[in-house]
């Protein structure tokens, strides 16, 4: 009975969705045409997605970073703080050696993704996830106590707060320079030559702060989730 009602509801929903998708009018493209034609001149970043995320819609990205911050805080509150038992499995030497071989390369990839976020695919969020995977791999392979000794929880929460406050401070630079909050090109910062590493004003610095914040936030989330009573 329950499955019958659910099936009917889902079929109705699917019909509505498919009719909506197939009769959908072509959306207005003025905004994206504007971004494509003058995004590089406005922001100095040749990666348009980074330009949208950290310049045009920078305030939105600040809210997005706040969501990660709130999720990490709530997880640290909700789940117990006792020691972990579920990761007591011991891995063989091969796993431990190969993981410890991989970790420096993962760090390089994460930093590359963060610092070249305005030039190539990547950015603060992607690079932050790669950096967080270092902590996650260390925790899975060597256990939580070793991982906590290498990267202390206090350091993680400090990095996360540093990233959040740095983002806001770089946003305030725009106000001090005479523009709006998180303004970049409009406030008169030097945009440089598009395509070079030190171009596009404040975007690389905001990217770096976001990367730190995402890396610390995701590792806090993981280490909170695996703890149990």
């Amino acid at each position, binding site marked *: 009975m329950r499955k019958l009602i659910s099936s009917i509801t*889902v079929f109705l929903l699917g019909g509505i*969705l498919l009719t909506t998708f197939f009769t959908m009018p072509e959306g207005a493209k003025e905004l994206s045409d504007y971004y*494509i034609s003058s995004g590089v001149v406005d922001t100095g970043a040749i990666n*348009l997605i980074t330009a949208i995320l950290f310049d045009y819609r920078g305030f939105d990205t600040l809210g997005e970073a706040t969501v*990660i911050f709130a999720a990490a805080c709530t997880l640290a509150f909700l*789940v117990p703080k006792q020691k972990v038992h579920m990761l007591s499995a011991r891995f063989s030497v091969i796993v431990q050696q190969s993981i410890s071989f991989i970790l420096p390369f993962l760090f390089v990839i994460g930093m590359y993704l963060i610092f070249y976020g305005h030039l190539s695919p990547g950015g603060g969020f992607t690079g932050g996830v790669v950096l967080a995977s270092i902590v996650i791999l260390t925790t899975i392979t060597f256990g939580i106590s070793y991982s906590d000794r290498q990267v202390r929880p206090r350091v993680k929460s400090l990095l996360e707060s540093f990233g959040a406050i740095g983002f806001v401070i770089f946003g305030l630079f725009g106000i001090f320079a005479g523009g709006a909050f998180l303004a970049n090109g409009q406030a008169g910062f030097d945009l440089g030559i598009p395509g070079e590493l030190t171009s596009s004003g404040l975007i690389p610095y905001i990217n770096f702060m976001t990367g730190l914040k995402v890396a610390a936030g995701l590792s806090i989330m993981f280490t909170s989730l695996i703890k149990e009573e």
Partner: protein
Amino acid sequence: MNSIYAVVGILICIGFYTILTKTNLIKMVIGINIIESAVILLLVALSYKPGGSAPILDKGYELVVDPIPQALALTAIVIGASTTAMMLALIIKIFSKHHTLDVREIRNLRG
């Protein structure tokens, strides 16, 4: 091109069916994640142009895809990861209190 919309619709239906019929909390979270992936697929499909390349305006580009839905997809991924972590943390709390993941039993225990 239109087949992608059909895939999105089918995925959203599968996710809703999972949420409505399954009684295990973790399976419900999986259903919510299926819907979320379908929405991201819809965003990527909306930004598609035939023959377009990635929106990185290096030298020698001709036609690039719409960058706005891709930026929104990034936002959706980040929010999705946060909400999934939140849901799993609440499930951990529920399990440690009721010692079951079955929705019906949890509802009965409440009285």
